[in-house]
């Protein structure tokens, strides 16, 4: 498949875009990465994702696929000769999908809202919730890894990708709040897993540096503050 047949429309700070990139990297797919401009949103974005107008969008032979977890599963389906991303057993696949849904529907929205928390009490409550979620994920890692390095076992898989993409923003939140969320005492296995994940060949070139993300977050927060009437 020639390079231009597979395109990924994305943005460097987005954890969701990272998921798609990791999946493509695992399968050694050559693709063209198009950094979305956003202001205004490009015609390609509006055309290929008219429903949500969001990144990532994978475009394969002119067909757009949207929503990061759907893209990851699509990549796994299409490039089936490469290493598997989803587990092979239906029950293990269900567990991986369950936790990925939890991450998107509950855990990450809570993490995001820490930055916009109104007041110390609210912030503390949200940080506690993030921590409780991490404890659940520590337990999930122990169960699904079966003693191996990743949620997916020997190799990174669907749940590693679904969760690992948030590590950058998790570190940003730690930096901005001064609170250690991924904790050696409470979540020792996750701490080790995070190091291994970030060092992985399919991940390291697409994981943004925390310092760059912190600057980006501060810029976003300043913009929000400027546009919110007092």
């Amino acid at each position, binding site marked *: 498949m020639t390079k231009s047949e597979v395109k990924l429309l994305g943005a460097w700070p987005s954890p969701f875009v990272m998921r798609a990139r990791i999946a493509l990297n695992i399968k050694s797919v050559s693709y063209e990465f198009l950094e979305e401009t956003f202001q205004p949103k490009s015609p390609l974005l509006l055309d290929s994702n008219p429903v949500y107008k969001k990144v990532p969008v994978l475009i*394969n032979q002119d067909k757009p696929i949207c929503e990061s977890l759907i*893209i990851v599963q699509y990549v796994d389906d*299409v490039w089936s000769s490469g290493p598997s991303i989803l587990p092979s057993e239906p029950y293990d*696949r*269900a*567990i991986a*999908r369950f936790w990925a849904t*939890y991450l998107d529907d509950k855990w990450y929205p809570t993490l995001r809202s820490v930055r916009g928390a109104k007041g110390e009490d609210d912030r503390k409550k949200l940080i506690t919730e993030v921590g409780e979620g991490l404890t659940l994920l520590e337990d999930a890692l122990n169960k699904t890894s079966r003693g191996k390095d990743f949620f997916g076992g020997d190799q990174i898989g669907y749940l590693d990708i679904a969760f690992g993409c948030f590590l950058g923003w998790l570190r940003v939140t730690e930096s901005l709040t001064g609170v250690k969320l991924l904790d050696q005492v409470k979540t020792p296995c996750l701490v080790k897993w995070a190091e291994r994940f970030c060092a992985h060949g399919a991940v390291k070139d697409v994981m943004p540096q925390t310092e760059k993300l912190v600057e980006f977050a501060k810029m976003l927060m300043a913009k929000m503050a400027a546009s919110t009437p007092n």
Partner: protein
Amino acid sequence: MGSEDVKLFNFHASPFGQRVIWALKLKGVDYECIEEDIFNKSNLLLELNPVHKKVPVLVHCNKPIAESLVILEYIDETWKQYPLMPQNPYQRAHARFWANFAEHKLLVAARIARLSSEEEQEKAVNEAREAMEKIEEEIKGKKFFGGDKIGYLDIVIGWISYWIPVWEEVGSMKILDPLKFPAINAWITNFLSHPTINDTLPQRDKMVVYYHSRRKEVSPS
């Protein structure tokens, strides 16, 4: 495989549990249905789904699976007869996209609408209608979302055929106007005509009582 291998923990009025029932029935899989009291959840349910503490939970060979969309894909991967997901990867992605959309945009808005009143309800009804418009475009020209046969997306969206009219009654509102959504209404007729779909529907009057009680909790007026 005997019915003792498959158990479904459900609540009669749950649209999420109904999806699982439809999938199991279409595939001819025997199962035991355990009705949970939503207002007094069993310890067993809390053990089986400690993260969300909700129904439905499918238990297969003593292994629990929660979250209806996850359960649907599990069922489809485990029992190969009557395939629910499309075979083609792009069409699979397409079905998952619209399932996700209906869940996050339509269901969420419709739920808020059935629980709220006045301004908040009007806003939610409008959001639900906007989502419905996109779904109308999707079903145009097709008998079912799955094509000629009922498939994954029909089962995921199927709740609107029976739950929306109940929610409209409970919330004194209108979301699914037949004049505005002729394709969806035609699909609803086709969908509910299927004996497997129709034979398993919960009792409407019991559902109405339940949803009225939920609304009263939130908007006591």
